[in-house]
């Protein structure tokens, strides 16, 4: 299977381990990830507030490049990049006044979008196109005994009318992926709540509290570790472990790893090959997984 691959800025930056693990896992599963030719930033979920037309146009540029590559599916590991592209095409199609303004902007650029290429989340491709059964065939190491919180976050699910892969209030894609590794999925009350990352740019205190709410909810529900589907959740939930610890006076950590990092472990790949971070390694060691 060949799909266009849009890593996004964070996946090539501070969340590089998401990129590393995703590529390794895709390789094992026989998915050919072709990086989108000369891709640009999707706006990071913020640009639209400053300039809506620029946001739409930037995202159309990526999708237009995908079309030029002769592909129609653009897969991204990052929920914000996903939301950004899908919202852009939704607005472009639904709002004729905005469309007119965007068309003015892209006049004379390389952009030529024909509504063929769409953005999809890596998890959707894994669950729907590759299939749980196929993934199962590649499992070499059962992660038995590991309790994994299934954290969905926001934009892989919402708005449901634009994402549409699964019920936003009753998702199960991540639980399915956890189950296949032999680990125990731990759904928890705040598994679809916001991690607070988008609030860090304006109200970091509030953002941190949201992160704590999520981690605490997973911890209380019995998770050892959690997986998530987003390069920005990754920064928030994993990097801030110690900040949360000191700010909210708790003794535990609840590391967050990317979904493909968990899959990779069950494919027998080493934590180093998957770029797994320090906090997670510690827990995985404790639990005898590595």
């Amino acid at each position, binding site marked *: 299977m060949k799909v266009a691959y849009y890593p996004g*800025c964070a996946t090539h930056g501070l969340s590089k381990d998401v990129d590393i693990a995703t590529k390794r896992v895709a390789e094992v599963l026989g998915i050919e990830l072709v990086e989108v030719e000369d891709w640009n930033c999707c706006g990071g979920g913020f640009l639209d507030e400053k300039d809506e037309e620029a946001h739409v146009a930037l995202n159309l540029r990526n999708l237009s490049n995908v079309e030029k590559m002769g592909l129609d599916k653009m897969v991204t590991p990052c929920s914000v990049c996903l939301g950004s592209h899908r919202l852009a095409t939704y607005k472009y199609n639904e709002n004729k006044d905005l469309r007119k303004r965007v068309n003015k902007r892209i006049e004379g650029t390389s952009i030529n979008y024909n509504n063929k290429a769409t953005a999809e989340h890596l998890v959707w491709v894994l669950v729907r196109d590759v299939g749980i059964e196929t993934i199962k065939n590649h499992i070499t190491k059962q992660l038995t005994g590991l309790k994994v919180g299934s954290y969905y976050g926001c934009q892989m699910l919402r708005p449901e009318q634009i994402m549409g892969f699964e019920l936003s209030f009753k998702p199960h894609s991540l639980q399915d992926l956890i189950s296949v590794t032999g680990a125990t999925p731990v759904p928890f009350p705040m598994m679809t709540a916001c991690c607070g990352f988008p609030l860090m740019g304006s109200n970091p205190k509030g953002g941190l509290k949201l992160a704590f709410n999520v981690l605490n909810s997973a911890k209380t529900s019995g998770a050892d570790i959690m997986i998530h589907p987003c390069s920005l959740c990754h920064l928030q939930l994993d990097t801030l472990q110690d900040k949360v610890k000191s700010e909210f006076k708790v003794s535990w950590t609840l590391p967050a790893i990317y979904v493909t990092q968990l899959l990779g472990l069950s494919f027998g790949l080493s934590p180093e090959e998957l770029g797994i971070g320090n906090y997670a390694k510690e827990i995985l060691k404790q639990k005898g997984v590595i």
Partner: protein
Amino acid sequence: MEPKSSAIRNEEKEIIVKVKRFSPDKGEWWQEYKLTVDRFTQMTEVLRRIKTEQDPSLSYRAACHMAVCGSCGMKINGAPMLACKTLALQLINEYGSNVITLEPMEWFPRVKDLVVDLDDFYERMYKVKPRLYPSKEVLDGKAEHRLVPEDQRELWKFAQCIWCGLCVSSCPSVKNDPEFLGPAAHAKGYRFLADPRDTITEERMKILIDSSWRCTYCYQCFNVCPRDIEPVTTIKKTRAWSSKMKDKTKVVETGEKHVNAIADTIRRSGKLLEAEVYLRTYGLVQAMTDMVFMIKSGRMKYALIKEVPIKGLNDIEKIMTLGENE
């Protein structure tokens, strides 16, 4: 003759409705009802039939049964929805179970059964001065408003809030931050802020802008709004007014720095340069402090990756500059 319409090939199914009931004297309990529905049965009709045929004591609100009055907001199978806009059989198919749960909306205090006290919601709406303040000349009939169709379409999209409360009930920032007005109030506020017929712009900016930077962009309001008014979109649009604001608060200042840094780095390289954005948003001191966490988590090495500008910078320049000249 076999009817051509599938409406005519109706199916019927027995469902079990589990209602989370409550009254101040009896407390909380779950109650089950069984009834047969067809593919057209709205959840408001399910409730009406329970009430008139099985249990008259069940309390809920409902009026228009066409998603314009906003009375029947509740949690259906855990999701905040209007009962009228939800078909019983569709739920059963989507959730793969013939059991449907009904609960009152979250966040608002319960009054009885599915009825909640919406005063908190209304107060939020009144805070944004939810009415047009037209110019005196127009009110006196000495002049007439004009409003171009493009503006009418933009504003009408956001003006269709039916005060149902679903977005506020499911908003994490409402629960997290008392200074945040909530999604519905922001939609209402923006609808007037951006209305060229309004005259109290300064006051509206004071009411709305600080709060707008307290939203966490989780898209839940967009997700649950039964009228598709996209409150989060109005919050984004409100933030754009920050540059016109005097006496900015801390959150506004930080937020603006953050977004400007994002826009600048994208324009320069086509990519979002995280390290630079971080530095410009929080300043050097905070950035140094936070570096400790970066090192601890083991991702300091990634912070040093040097991103190469994209080749098509001409495109980016064009896309982003035109916006400033408009």
